[in-house]
């Protein structure tokens, strides 16, 4: 599926300073019953966000109007658990384009990039600086420059660089996806398959 190109993003951020945020929290299994990729944002963090009677839980960050933006900042080991791409879809559909954490679970990280969300892995110390800056001023901005591979806290000017492989970076900047790439090399794949015996 095509997604918006990602180059430069300056935005306020939503803080979620919890470790091991698993994909069952991001989107519980009972909301995986759709056969189309629509409306998953409504159920993002469903059980942290809403009471059993569907009223919003006032103390959850997504229900606090002082926090908003296209960047979600999570604690260490973000996205552990299931391979459900629905977790990344829910984050994208809600309006986030970037998730920042000091550590990501593998499958979530791959799923996010595949649908056009940039996962930015920073040091523990930098993550703490981000949480503190948002705590001091929820309207503070963060700038993520994919070309330069840097993340900058506008409040303090603190900057850190992040890693991403060149292939995926190129894809995100241009809005390309892996299926385009694989379709273009189908004859090579056929040749490989004909020699590959299993």
């Amino acid at each position, binding site marked *: *599926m095509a997604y918006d190109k990602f180059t430069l993003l300056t935005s306020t951020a939503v803080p979620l*300073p*919890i*470790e*091991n945020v*698993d994909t*069952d*929290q991001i989107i*519980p*299994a*009972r909301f*995986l*019953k*759709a*056969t*189309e*990729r629509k409306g998953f944002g409504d159920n993002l963090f469903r*059980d942290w966000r809403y009471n*059993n009677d569907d009223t919003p839980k006032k103390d959850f960050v997504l229900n606090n109007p002082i926090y908003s933006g296209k960047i979600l900042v999570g*604690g*260490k*080991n973000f996205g*552990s*658990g*299931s*391979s*459900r*791409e*629905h977790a*990344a879809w829910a984050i994208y559909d809600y309006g986030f384009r970037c998730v920042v954490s000091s*550590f*990501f*679970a*593998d*499958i979530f990280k*791959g*799923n996010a990039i*595949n*649908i056009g969300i940039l996962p930015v892995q920073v040091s523990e110390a930098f993550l703490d600086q981000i949480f503190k800056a948002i705590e001091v001023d929820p309207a503070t901005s963060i700038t993520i420059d994919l070309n330069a591979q840097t993340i900058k806290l506008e409040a303090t000017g603190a900057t850190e660089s992040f890693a991403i*492989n*060149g*292939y*995926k970076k190129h894809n995100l900047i241009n809005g390309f*996806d*892996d*299926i385009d*790439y*694989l*379709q273009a*090399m*189908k004859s*090579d*794949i056929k040749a*490989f*398959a004909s020699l*590959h015996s*299993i």
Partner: protein
Amino acid sequence: MSNKPSTLFDKVWDAHVVRKIEDGPDVFFIDRHFIHEVTSPVAFLGLESRGIDVMFPECTFATADHNTPTINQHLPVADPLSANQLQALERNSAKYGISHWGLGDPKNGIVHVVGPENGITLPGMTIVCGDSHTSTHGAFGAIAFGIGTSEVEMVLSSQCIMQPKPKKMRINVNGNLGKAVTPKDVTLYIISQLTTAGATGYFVEYAGDVFENMSMEGRMTVCNMSIEMGARGGMIAPDETTFNYINGREKAPKGEAWDKALAYWKTLKTDAGADFDKEYHFDAADIEPMITYGTNPGMGMGISKHIPKATDLEGGVATYAKSLKYMGFEEDQLMIGKKVDYVFIGSCTNGRIEDFRAFASIVKGRKKADHITAWIVPGSHIVEAQIKEEGILDILTEAGFQLRQPGCSACLAMNDDKIPAGKYAVSTSNRNFEGRQGPGSRTLLASPYVAAAAAVTGMVTDPRELL
């Protein structure tokens, strides 16, 4: 070809690289692709919107499991959304010529149970599915891991995914396992030592005599849980136990093809002196029957122990406190004697025949505790038939238990099998995340023995006292 010692993982991985992209992933060829109703529909929509076909439909196998009822499977599925997903799987499979074991089919069951039991899963293969517990198939010496729906679409359309090669980890467990210590306890112990993210970025090989002496069912339980310490997958070198399990299964090679395959499979082991990026050694004697007390699978301990204090652990104190609060537990609390409300035995982790044999061995001659609701869910119709043939059903019935029909059931609670808010469930499944088994549910992960001990006593009980 170099003569450098190579790992099992390298041998299988390198045989499947179609192209290496500089500063990028490998284009990685997939031998077997399993699909189910939840993570495949959007991939098929993607094919349609791009106007592309399935490249090798004979390499993809569909089964319905995540969203299926575990009673009255002969009736129409009541939930319209679930029914819609099941119909989409059937329709998409038919349209593209993919084998489909839908609800009611005698081969139907949990994807990671039916693949191996029908001889689809073989050593040396690359196997993927839109489900993180695809790591199960690594028990056969295959590279098997979970993928997202975008990747499901890649495999359908090109039989490849784009995958950076993970680092390599070897986990050795040697020695003799104690009484009532099962493969589930071995894996929960390893995860408790490494933590829930301790193997992220790695692919694991399990080695040592504990795994060599394990049945295929046990090896599948161990490899299944690899993802719970963050590893993409885990694998065990194939041996006579593996070959004996596969031989004669429906889709396994036969005759000359068997001989040829066997000769290849026997080369699939790590050479002496091969390098790993990380290696751990554990002593089997240190492992006792395990139980989890928190909200990730790394929060496990020996059943006789006290819940750890936050100060004794790595990681955030606030996150730990949040987890214990959700569970209704306190630091330093003893788990033994804790009242339990529900017991679930089943799932791709512990839904195979050996698991039900273990459960029955404790239940035999005892009665279900009155206040316990027990869901006993075989992993497949083939397992269900074995339960009946071996007389296990009679033991269960005599003790006051009922057998349900196959599916993922309360492991992820997508169907009606949901643990109510605030209730405690001893579960043989794989995840104890908040709300995993139903909103507000509290999960204690454990082995079939511990589940059986809870089912007959109504509380957390050391199974060694009942065996």
